[in-house]
């Protein structure tokens, strides 16, 4: 057995007891003994490091969205399914958890954004602007995202009804949520009549991300107040 073989064994099997052949080689090879000693030290020091601090979900969402938009990572297409089945009802209960909700909303945005922004223009609307036709509602980009966000917004309103707060911060959040909603309506309308307008799609995608972050911040605040 050669040094390279020992490295391969360690790479594949870790530092667990090495095969006899490897041990026999190490008995005569100082280089490999040093190598194993270094690895053991690294593992030992790593074990003393504090546990990783998990960043807020929204950081991951934004990062993933950015990577997706830049084409660095690709998200597989979400399975289609429009009917609410029993699994969905169970999932909906699970969705009450704020952190999970934020994460799911973000991932949906990323997935929808990635898929929609990469979708080639339809053959029927190549060429002239005059050929633009309105698309059916079920084809509107980010429709699933919009649905999930709207449900989250309803949850938030219920939370706010339970403990109404009228501070300047709450007013700012509400006012800006209205603005984002209005902007989403504008962009959705534009994208529905001009599905190939990439700039409008980009703004719509950004608006959904902002809405997800805003709802997350509002829910965090509600949670800390009540």
């Amino acid at each position: 057995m050669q040094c390279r073989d020992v490295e391969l064994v360690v790479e594949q099997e870790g530092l667990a007891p090495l095969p006899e052949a490897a041990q026999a080689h190490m008995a005569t090879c100082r280089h490999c003994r040093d190598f194993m000693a270094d690895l053991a030290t690294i593992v030992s020091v790593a074990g003393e490091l504090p546990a990783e601090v998990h960043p807020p979900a929204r950081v991951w969402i934004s990062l993933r969205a950015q990577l997706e938009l830049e084409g660095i990572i690709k998200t597989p297409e979400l399975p289609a399914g429009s009917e609410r089945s029993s699994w969905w009802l169970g999932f909906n209960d699970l969705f009450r958890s704020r952190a999970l909700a934020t994460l799911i909303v973000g991932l949906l945005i990323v997935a929808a954004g990635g898929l929609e922004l990469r979708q080639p223009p339809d053959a029927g609307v190549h060429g002239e602007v005059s050929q633009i036709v309105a698309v059916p509602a079920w084809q509107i980009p980010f429709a699933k995202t919009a649905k999930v966000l709207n449900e989250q917004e309803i949850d938030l309103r219920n939370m706010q009804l339970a403990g109404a707060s009228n501070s300047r911060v709450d007013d700012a959040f509400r006012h800006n949520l209205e603005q984002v909603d209005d902007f989403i309506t504008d962009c959705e309308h534009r994208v529905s009549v001009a599905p190939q307008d990439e700039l409008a799609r980009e703004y719509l995608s950004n608006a959904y991300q902002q809405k997800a972050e805003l709802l997350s911040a509002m829910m965090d605040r509600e949670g800390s107040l009540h």
Partner: protein
Amino acid sequence: MRTGMMRVTAFRSHRNLAAKRPLRNRIYLPLLVAAVFLYSGASAPAAGQQGQHLARHFAVNARPVVVIHNVANGRIEVKSWKNAEVDVLASQISNKIGFDMEQAGDRIDVTATVLNNSAQPQEMEANLQLTVPEETELQLKTETGLIYVEQVMGDMTLESVAGDVHLKEVSGYIIVRTTEGSLVCTQCAGKLDFKSISGGTQVLQPALTNVSLFTTSGNILFDGDFVRTGLYTMKSGKGTVEVRFSGNDSFDLKAQTAMGTVDNRAAAFLKPDSHGVKHMASKFTHGLFGTVGQGLAKVELSSYSGTIRILKRD
């Protein structure tokens, strides 16, 4: 009627009690009550103006990290000095806000917390004044107050919901996030990343090499030079994006809007792109592409329905 009779009875019993007290008490008691009343009335505003102060000093080594989380309604002001010390001066109107300050090596954490949830908005005011070494990293988070940073070099993340952010002569990787607060960045250097929903931004006399500005409905103004090889992206959904460049600037320009307009007031300075890549606006957008000077920096402007304005400074 019944209430009136009860009042009369109470008044009579009070007179009877008073009659039994020594004369000295009868004279001094009303005077004492009046004095207490006058004192409390006069001292309340004074306490409100003066408030309560808390000062702490933290000795640090090079390049400390200062983390502030101010949940109160107040201003965070950060200035620099040559000393290797972080000074924190906290002032508050009421005692319903508490400050936690701690030092862990070169990290200073300051957190303002609400001690009493029944506090009224005017009682929630708490200001923080910091003096830090020139090279300091900052992470500041507030809800409604102004964040003001002057002459600090170091990476910084500044977050606010409704408060504005004013930066003067700062440098580093600057990240600003607001919900509706605006950003004014004067003579900033390094990299700037701003995102807001309805807040606008003004970037004045910058020396920034990388700029990314995004707001859904706020306005954007960039008034200054483009550093050669710099990358500049400015996007507003509904607001105006205005760029004022100088005659010495050198940049490639790409301006696009979906529903808005491009107001080109610098047509005399814009040449067709000279770098071989022929840009064309999508048929769904209004676009403007061109080069100023040699086109060394890259400037991308976009809006959904707002106006993009490009002009040369006088």
